[in-house]
Each structure stands twice: as C-alpha cells, then as structure tokens.
C-alpha cells in the first residue's frame, strides 16, 4: 500500500448516481474488501463531461476546479480517485493545466474566490480507480482475495480513451494493466486490438450513424476474438456498448450479444460475492450467459492458430528488449 | 524598451539588470546558440564568461548585487556533464549556502539563481533568462545604494557612506 494508507478522496460523478449505479455499488463492495477508504467529496458537482468545454472553457475549468477545491478540504491523503473516465480526465486535466498555465490558474482561482474557494494547483493527485487497484493494492493482494476464479470466461479488456490518453503514464495505445487484472482474477483475456478505441462518446446524441459504426467496430472485434464479455471501466463506454447494442444489431443486421461489465463487478464475482450485491441485472445485454462460462474446464481454442514452423523467424518480444521465438 | 513597471511600479522607466556568470563550455555556448538562432530575450542580462561554474566565487555575486545589479544568474553544464567533472556541483552547493545567507540579509533567493544549459540548449538558456527577468521584475529593484544612505545630519561632503 502506498503513502495514501488506503484512504482516498472519492469523486463518484453523476453517472454513478444513475445510469452506472452498478459501477458504484460494485466499486464500494470491492473497496470495502480491499480495505480502501473512500471519503466522498461533500456536495460535489458535475465535471462538465465533454460538453461544458465546448461552450465556454473558463467556466468549465472553474466548474471542475470547484470539485478540486472541495476535494482538497476533504480529509485523508491528497489523492483524488474517480471511477468514471470522463470525470477522471476532466479533474486531472484541470489540475494539470492549472499548474502548467499561470493565467488559467489565476483566472480559475479568481472565479473560485466568488464562491469563497481556492485551489492550489497540483496539490491533489488525481487518479483513476483502476490505477488505485493495480498500483496501490497490486495484483498480488488481489490474487490473494480471489476465492472463485473466473476461469473459463473469455473477456475483452476495454479501456476506452480517457484513462490512457492524453498522458497518464500508461501505454496510450496498448495498455495491459486491465488485462493483467483480469488474468489475476482467472479469466482468459483475449488480445483485443480495439481496446483503446472510441465507444462513440456523445456521438449517439449528435450523429447516430457515426456512433453506431464506432460501437459496431468494437463489438465486431470482440466477437471476432470470441469474447464472452467486454469488461470496461467507464460509464459512458458501458452505456454506449450495452444500451445501443440492439440498435447496432438492427442497423447493421448483426447479432452481437456481448454483455458489457464493469471490472469491479468481475472483481466482486472473483472475490466470491453474489451477482446481486454487485449490481448485475442492470445491464441491458444480460450477463447471465457470460457468468455461466465461469468454471468451464478448458475454453475451446478460438485463437488464430500460431504457426510453429522451424523456418519461422524470431519475433521481437513485446516488453523489453529481447526476442522470443514464435 | 520594455515596460517593467507592470511587474512592479518601483521600476519606473528603468529595466532590471542581471549579471550572468556563464561557463565557457555549456551555457556560454548556449547563449551563443541563442544568438545564432536569433532567439530573443530581454536585454536585462549582462554576462561574464568563466571557465567553469566552479570558478564562481560568491564574492562575485555579492559584488554584483552591491554594485547595483538586481539579480545574478549563474549557469553551467548540467549535473554530471561538467567539462571539469564536478565544478557545477560545487557551484550548486555554494549557491545554496549563499542563497540561505543572503535570505537572512533580506535578499530574496530568486535574485540569485543557478541554472543549467548544455551548449545545444539555446532555447533553455533563453527561457531561463526570460523567467529570471520576470521573477526579478516582480521583486522590484534592489536599491542597495538608497539602502545605505543615512538621513542623519553631520555627513560631510566626500566622506563615503
């Protein structure tokens, strides 16, 4: 455990109060099991999503900064955790930009002063829930909590955009920390090239044609690789892929039937909790079939056959400088 | 000429003066490169070439402040890249001690800065001068001369203050 000592300032965000309440419930259950203390910011407001920044940037930054200022007043370590990727990005970006751009910092604080608030840019560290889980808790400790391995379930780890971009320290194109977490839980993780592609974001409201195509790409890829479920960490990704899956099927004549689950839900299952206490059932595409895969002996080989030819050339290793034989 | 009174009204129509001590191998060449690259910066810096920041005698810094400079900027090679192995580490320690000492005498540490630029870093050199100028401009003039003038009577002409 890090210097935070397991205590964090918690920003749930609007989605977790409504459309993503399953995420909220499962997060709280898992946090409890992992001895993480989440002190919710009192009277937090919306992060503005992507919309407020399109209307007027300074009020948008000020809106976010109110949360930062309130968070800084909340007890505990100066670590602010957000489970929603959009909230996470907005909080983090505002924090970083205020520290980086003097004029912005000055103006935002001038606006905050109208509400008798002040925020010292950079005094908090803004982090995503997944980061807390893999970095601060760590795979080893999570592995020790697993009582019901997810063996047999094939999951597509879907990160979406905002947890890895623009600059969060993780691989911006092909992160693997969610993959490792799922492997730790016993699941079979598919190589998922679309793992950081866009779910469509607000395009469902602006142009359905564009949005459905983006959703289709992800679902198609997951289906191509035989995923039983897509595991996600963002309410917007979950919403778009889950709620619009039927529309996509109707639009493109496809028959995708892939449940979209929060990683905390699967952690809870692996920790031996019941689906009910983790908010299962609120997904539009039912997770029942995927959950039924758990415990199967050997998943059938659905990966592309690997050529093991003696003429084959060595393959560069993905991590580190060495090579491996294919 | 730039208007520094926007940073601190005490400047009036004058500009800050910063004395620079630049090491021959890195930062003096960085300043040269800023020149050949035509990177503009405020005309506040008046520099002195020394072979190494290790040659930097704190007396020079005090002298410059005493003689009317509003700030002193010492620049050398990056740590680990000193042409003479470790001269810049000595400068780092001397400046740290000097800053503490001068702070007790009411001289803000921002007036005496140590920075690094390799011979290839004309841009970093330029930015450093800009930043230092702004910091010193905010602090206002050093006004040492005024500081030593005694208002008491019985001062005779020609007797140093």
């Amino acid at each position, binding site marked *: 455990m890090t210097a935070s000592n397991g205590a964090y300032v918690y920003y749930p965000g609007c989605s977790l109060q409504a459309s993503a309440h399953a995420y909220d419930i499962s997060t709280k259950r898992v946090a409890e099991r992992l001895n993480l203390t989440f002190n919710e910011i009192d009277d937090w407001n919306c992060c503005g999503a992507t919309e407020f920044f399109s209307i007027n940037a300074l009020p948008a930054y000020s809106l976010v900064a109110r949360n930062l200022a309130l968070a800084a007043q909340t007890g505990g370590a100066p670590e602010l955790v957000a489970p929603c990727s959009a909230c996470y990005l907005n909080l983090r970006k505002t924090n970083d930009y205020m520290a980086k751009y003097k004029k912005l910092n000055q103006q935002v604080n001038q606006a905050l002063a109208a509400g008798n608030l002040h925020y010292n840019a950079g005094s908090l560290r803004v982090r995503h829930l997944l980061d807390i889980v893999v970095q601060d808790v760590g795979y080893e400790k999570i592995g020790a909590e697993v009582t019901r391995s997810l063996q047999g379930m094939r999951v597509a780890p879907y990160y979406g955009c905002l947890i890895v971009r623009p600059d969060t320290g993780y691989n911006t194109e092909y992160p693997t920390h969610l993959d490792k977490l799922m492997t730790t839980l016993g699941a079979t993780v598919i190589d998922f090239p679309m793992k950081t592609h866009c779910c469509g974001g607000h395009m469902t409201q602006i142009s359905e044609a564009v949005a459905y195509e983006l959703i289709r790409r992800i679902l198609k890829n997951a289906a191509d690789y035989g995923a039983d479920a897509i595991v996600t960490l963002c309410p917007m990704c979950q919403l778009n892929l889950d709620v619009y899956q039927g529309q996509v099927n109707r639009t493109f004549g496809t028959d995708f039937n892939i449940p979209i689950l929060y990683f905390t839900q699967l952690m809870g299952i692996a920790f031996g909790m019941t689906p009910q206490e983790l908010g299962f059932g609120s997904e539009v595409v039912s997770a029942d079939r995927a959950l039924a895969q758990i415990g199967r002996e050997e998943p059938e080989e659905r990966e592309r056959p690997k050529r093991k030819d003696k003429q084959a050339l060595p393959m560069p290793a993905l991590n580190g400088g060495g090579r491996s034989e294919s | 000429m730039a208007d520094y009174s926007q940073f601190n009204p005490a400047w009036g129509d004058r500009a800050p003066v910063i004395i620079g001590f630049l090491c021959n191998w890195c930062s003096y060449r960085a300043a040269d490169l800023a020149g050949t690259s035509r990177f503009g910066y405020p005309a506040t810096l008046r520099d002195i070439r020394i072979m190494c920041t290790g040659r930097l005698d704190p007396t020079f810094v005090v002298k410059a402040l005493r003689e009317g400079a509003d700030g002193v900027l010492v620049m050398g090679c990056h740590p680990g890249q000193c042409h003479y192995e470790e001269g810049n580490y000595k400068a780092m*320690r001397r400046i*740290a001690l000097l800053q503490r*000492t001068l702070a007790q005498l009411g001289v*803000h540490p921002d007036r005496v800065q140590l920075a690094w630029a390799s011979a290839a870093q004309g841009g970093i050199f330029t930015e450093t001068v800009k930043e230092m100028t702004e910091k010193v401009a905010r*602090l206002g003039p050093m006004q040492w001369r005024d500081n030593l003038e005694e208002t008491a009577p019985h001062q005779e002409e020609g007797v140093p203050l």
Partner: protein
Amino acid sequence: MSAKPKLAVYWASSCGGCEIAILAIHEKILDVAAAFDLVFWPCVLDFKKADVAAMADGEIDVTLFNGAIRTEENAEMAHLLRKKSKVLVAYGSCAMEGCIPGLANFADRKHMMQYIYHDAPTVDNPEGVEPQPQTTVPEGTLTLPAYWDTVKTLDQVVPVDYYLPGCPPEAKWTQAAVEAIMSGQLPPPGSVIGMDVTVCDECPREREEKKIKRFYRPQEIIPDPNKCLLDQGLLCMGIATRAGCGALCPSVNMGCRGCYGPNVDVVDGGARMISAIGSVIDAKTPEEIDAVLDTLPDPAGYFYRFGLAHSMLRRTALVRENGDRRAQPLEEVPHLDPKLKT
C-alpha cells in the same frame, strides 16, 4: 606645548573591552604614559569634548578609536577626532569592521526600537514611550544623539590611517603599534597591524582533506582535541580569518569565531566562508545539500558575526520606501528570523 607626542583614546559604540585591552600591554603602559602626553581618554582621564574642540587641527598625534559608529554622537566624535588627529587608528574589531554592534544591521532602527521598547519579553512600557532625539520639557529642550539606522565602521565615516584587528586586539599587536608609533617607523597609511595568513597557520590541529556530511553545534559533539575542528563538522572560521590571536579559540576546542576579520585583500569574509564551506560539503543533489545545510542554522550570523558592517553588503537589504524601511521582500524571504517581520 609639550614635546611629547599627544595621544587620545576614544570609546564609541563598543563593549569597552578595547579600553581594557589597551591596558593589557601591562608594564608597557608605563612606557606609553612616559612617552605620550595623554590629551583625551574619557574612560580614564577627565577631559571634555570642549577641550578637544579647542585644540588646533592636527594637534593630536595619535588617536586610538574603538567602537563602531551607531549614533549621532559617535559620528560627531569621529569627525572631531579625525580633524584634530594626525594619525587615526581604528582600534579593535568594532571600529574596524563593525563587530557585534554591527549585527544590528540585520535589522533597522524601526525594528530595533519596536523590539527593544515594545516587544521584548522583559519590557514594561505601558505608555509605549520611545526615546526621542528631542524632548520638550518645561525647562527647555532635551536632546539625545540620534540613533542611526545603519551601524557603520569608522572608515565608513571618516578616513582611517591604521587598523588594529581583534575583539579585542591581542596585547602584542597593541604593543607593536605603540612601538611603531613611538619609533616613528610608520607603515604606509591604510595598513592593518597584523598578519597576512589565516588562523590555520597558527593552529596546531591536524588537518585532512575535507568532506563535511553534517555540521555540529558545540554542544552536540566532543571533538577530538588533535584534529581540525572543521574536519569534525564543527564550524570554525579559522580558515578565513586573519591570524594573530595564536588560534586562541581552537586551542580550547571552540571553533574560531572570526574576530580578526578576513585575510588580506579579502573584502567580504562571509563570502569566502560560503565558498569554502560550500565547496567541501559532501552532497550532490539539492535535497542532500539542503539536508546538510539544515544542520548549519543561521549561516549569516556565523559568517558575518564580526564583519557585517564592513562586508560588501553591509546591512540587510530591506527596501526603503517613503522614508521608511518597508519590509517588502521580507514576507517572501524564507529562513528569516520571524522576529524581524512586521
């Protein structure tokens, strides 16, 4: 007019130790009395200022002037004695470099008055009275010499011919000066009656290559009696202090305080210490350096204990505005004594 050369001794802003130091030349004092005509020595003989004023310019052959210039009265006497003396000697550290009175230059008049007459814990001054240069009473106007903002050395007020360093000067140097004056073998004006090496030259302790990992205050360590104190982390000003005392302090396990002032040609002894000490700190990153320097509280107080008034900076850099020393940079300056904040 007496055939004997005329000698005057004056005590300005100082502790009085120099007066005693003059007497510490023991039996030689009789030679002095025999050789000189003592025309002015307020501590010893009952002459008045008016007696001096009545003298012709240059009538006094030698004046030994101790003490710094801190008040209007000090300055007035310095000017008067300068005018009346052929040779003016800055006797002792106060007159030469400001010494302990010069530490007042870390503050200014306003802050001094505030602390002395209002804030000091021992003060009982319910009416908030402060001494005034002029006070009108029914009988007339009372005056006090004005208290200066800045303590000055003698040569910052009047030209000085010779300097005798030390707090107080060691007897042998007073003696050397007296003998030189009596013999008429005077060195060139501006000379310091002293040595041109540092205390290390007279110090018997064994020195090694220096690498200081932390500093100790005297109460924190029992030093090895044979090894260089600085090598052991005890701050010793001997490396940058003019020799002449015979390394008195280091010989009793106490680091040199620096009372003889910096070496020949050195105009800022504190800066020399900063450079030397900074050079031998054993640290490479800003964090490590800070950790070592944190064990050295009050560096300015150490390095400028005797020489602040005569150093290059001479006094704190508070900025004067509207005739008042406004503590403008103070709020922003770290490491500064909180007592001095307005």
